[in-house]
């Protein structure tokens, strides 16, 4: 009798049929390509980059600017819900984020990072958008916790924005309900990685696939 190896049955990717994910793909805002510098600065940099051997200037300049940016990411003090407690714990002495160069700052005009910590309600979303608009470029956003990622347990409620990425572009999603300070720290380190990979000129390298 012939023994056949079992035929693997690969299920169809049913997640593609889930309406919510399609909706998410359709609605979430991507981070715009590049920084919003002045057009003159952009054209000068492009000119130097396209000059023969010009990358020898722009690459170290990019590296230096990225190093400076990632070493002084100042998060704006902005707490929405219970995740803010964990965010405060992360900012406080035990999980000291100041050793990463992050100073929680109470003014959006001096900040680079918004940690969206908690449920974004439809009533709160315009204020969140406004605070994000008040931050100077370049700026980043970390979506912290299930509620900010997708609406979380309140997704099927009537009053919750189903993910903060429908309001502002998000760079790093931190899962958890709420994420412990270690998770948020990991997310902030991933964000620093992402900032360090940033290229204004030329092609942007693939982002670091490192997780947990």
């Amino acid at each position, binding site marked *: 009798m012939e023994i056949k190896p079992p035929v693997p049955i690969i299920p169809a990717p049913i997640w593609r049929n889930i309406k919510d994910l399609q909706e998410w793909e359709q609605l979430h805002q991507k981070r715009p390509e590049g920084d919003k510098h002045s057009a003159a600065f952009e054209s000068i940099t492009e000119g130097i980059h396209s000059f023969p051997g010009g990358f020898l200037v722009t690459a170290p300049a990019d590296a230096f600017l990225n190093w400076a940016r990632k070493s002084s990411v100042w998060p704006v003090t902005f707490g929405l819900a219970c995740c803010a407690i964990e965010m405060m714990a992360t900012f406080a002495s035990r999980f000291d984020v100041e050793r990463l160069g992050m100073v929680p700052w109470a003014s959006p005009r001096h900040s680079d990072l918004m940690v969206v910590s908690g449920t974004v309600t*439809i009533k709160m979303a315009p204020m969140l958008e406004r605070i994000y608009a008040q931050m100077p470029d370049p700026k980043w956003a970390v979506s912290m916790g299930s509620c900010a990622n997708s609406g979380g347990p309140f997704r099927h*409620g009537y*009053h919750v924005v189903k993910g903060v990425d*429908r*309001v502002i572009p998000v760079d790093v999603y931190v899962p958890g309900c709420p994420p412990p300070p270690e998770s948020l720290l990991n997310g902030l380190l991933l964000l620093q990685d992402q900032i360090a990979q940033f290229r204004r000129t030329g092609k942007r390298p693939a982002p670091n696939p490192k997780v947990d």
Partner: protein
Amino acid sequence: MTHEQAKTLIGERFGGAQVESASAEATAGKGMTLTITVPANDWRAFASFAKNELGCRFFSFSSAVDWKEQGLEVVAKVDNVDTGLSILMKTKLGPGVSECQSLVPVFRGADWMERECYDMFGIRFDGHPDLRRILLGDDWVGHPLLKSYAVDTPHPPYR
């Protein structure tokens, strides 16, 4: 004021009120709750009766229930903190009706409760001094705790 005395007084004064009799165990000690359904016309009269004659001076809460075809039901709880008598007063507004008498002239604490009730169920309280939305934004359309409200109602630009 015991349970039985309160029942007798209510029976004398409000003939149309239905008193749901609680079990003997519940009525034995303190912390007993009388559940009373009054006609919608007697809503404020019953509240002032409960406050002045039954001594229920503490307004605990007010809310509403949507019973779909049978219409809305307004619920309020008032307590007599001295004797431990609690009265859960209810009234059925009837199908399609969303007007109710306000309790604010009797209990000042009913103000925000009834604003929330208006916000969530769309019940317009007659005699309320300042009836507008309290939790949702002023531009919100609909009343979300009604059974007829679809939770997926789009709310541009955020969902």
